[in-house]
């Protein structure tokens, strides 16, 4: 999860998010250099004593400031397009989970083998135990096996919602009457937090998403327990 006053991305928990972080660093370095260049030019212009009232044109600088931005844009576009297509690769998911948005909670359905479904409500602040995170914890987490490709089918029952988990690099709109598909792989075990990302009413800020990645044997135990409780 994010720590207080955090501005940057959270640590990556999926290969796609790792690639996004690397691309972000690359683009940010280019932005930093451009900003430094502009700052230097501004200081140079403000502090110069030179004046020339007779300059009409300059072909050389026109060529430079046409070609250089094009080169910079290509340097940014190539890795960007690579990641764009990487995110859409077909990955043969091992598991399909449906995440349905409601006002104001999420429900998850694991229907590949058995009929497992449950609701995931936020835990209220007064019910939190020490060590739990305010406005982020839920009563039933979405448990997934780690290092397995997961397909998530996102939809909504009432109004627009959006299922987002920043550390997995996933965000997908939940649209009533439409099934949106996204995929992710949790590279490491852990608990990953997200929040609804489309305004959906009074409690839009109070319907978080919690994904818990565990080894496969623990996932099988958990699903057996959930089926018994159902």
């Amino acid at each position, binding site marked *: 999860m994010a*720590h207080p006053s955090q501005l*940057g991305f959270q640590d990556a928990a999926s290969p796609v998010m790792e690639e996004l972080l*690397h691309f972000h*660093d690359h683009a940010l*370095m280019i932005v930093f250099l451009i*900003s430094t260049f502009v700052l230097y030019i501004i200081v*140079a212009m403000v502090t110069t004593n030179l004046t020339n009232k007779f300059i009409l044109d300059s072909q050389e600088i026109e060529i430079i400031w046409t070609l250089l931005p094009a080169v910079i844009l290509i340097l940014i576009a190539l890795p960007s397009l690579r990641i764009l297509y990487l995110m859409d690769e077909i990955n043969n998911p091992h598991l399909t989970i449906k995440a349905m948005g409601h006002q104001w909670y999420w429900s998850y359905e694991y229907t590949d083998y058995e009929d497992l479904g449950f609701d995931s409500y936020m835990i209220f602040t007064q019910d939190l135990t020490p060590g739990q995170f305010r406005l982020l914890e839920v009563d039933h987490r979405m448990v997934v096996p780690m290092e397995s490709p997961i397909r998530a089918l996102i939809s909504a029952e009432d109004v627009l919602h959006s299922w987002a988990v920043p550390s997995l690099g996933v965000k997908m709109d939940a649209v009533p009457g439409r099934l949106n598909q996204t995929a992710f792989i949790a590279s490491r075990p852990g608990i990953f937090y997200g929040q609804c990302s489309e305004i959906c009413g009074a409690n839009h800020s109070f319907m978080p998403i919690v994904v818990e990645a565990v080894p496969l044997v623990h996932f099988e135990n958990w699903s057996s327990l959930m089926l018994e409780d159902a």
Partner: protein
Amino acid sequence: MAGEDRETQTKGLKLLGILDVQNTPCAREAILHGAGGSVAAGLLYFLATSRVKRSYDVGFAGFMVTTLGSWFYCRMNNAKLRVQQRLIQEGIKNKVAYEGTVMDPTRKGKAEAPSGPS
């Protein structure tokens, strides 16, 4: 738990308020190389021409070129290491999974040895 995150994560220095040099891989090295390249280029140009203002411009150009060069070189090396790491991880996983089965690539040598009584 949030307190532990704060202690373990070094508070990065953000150049121009945007570039976190401490926590961005290769950024610190690139900026340091850039600073060194800038000083070297500007100084050499000044020693050769004694033009102060132009030396600053050359120094700045040296900073940009050295930073970019160091950045891309470091990032390419990191990318190659990441690919190697993934291959090794995949190899270890496959070795554990396939050992002793027909898909074990090291099994061929054992299959050729005669198994019946001599």
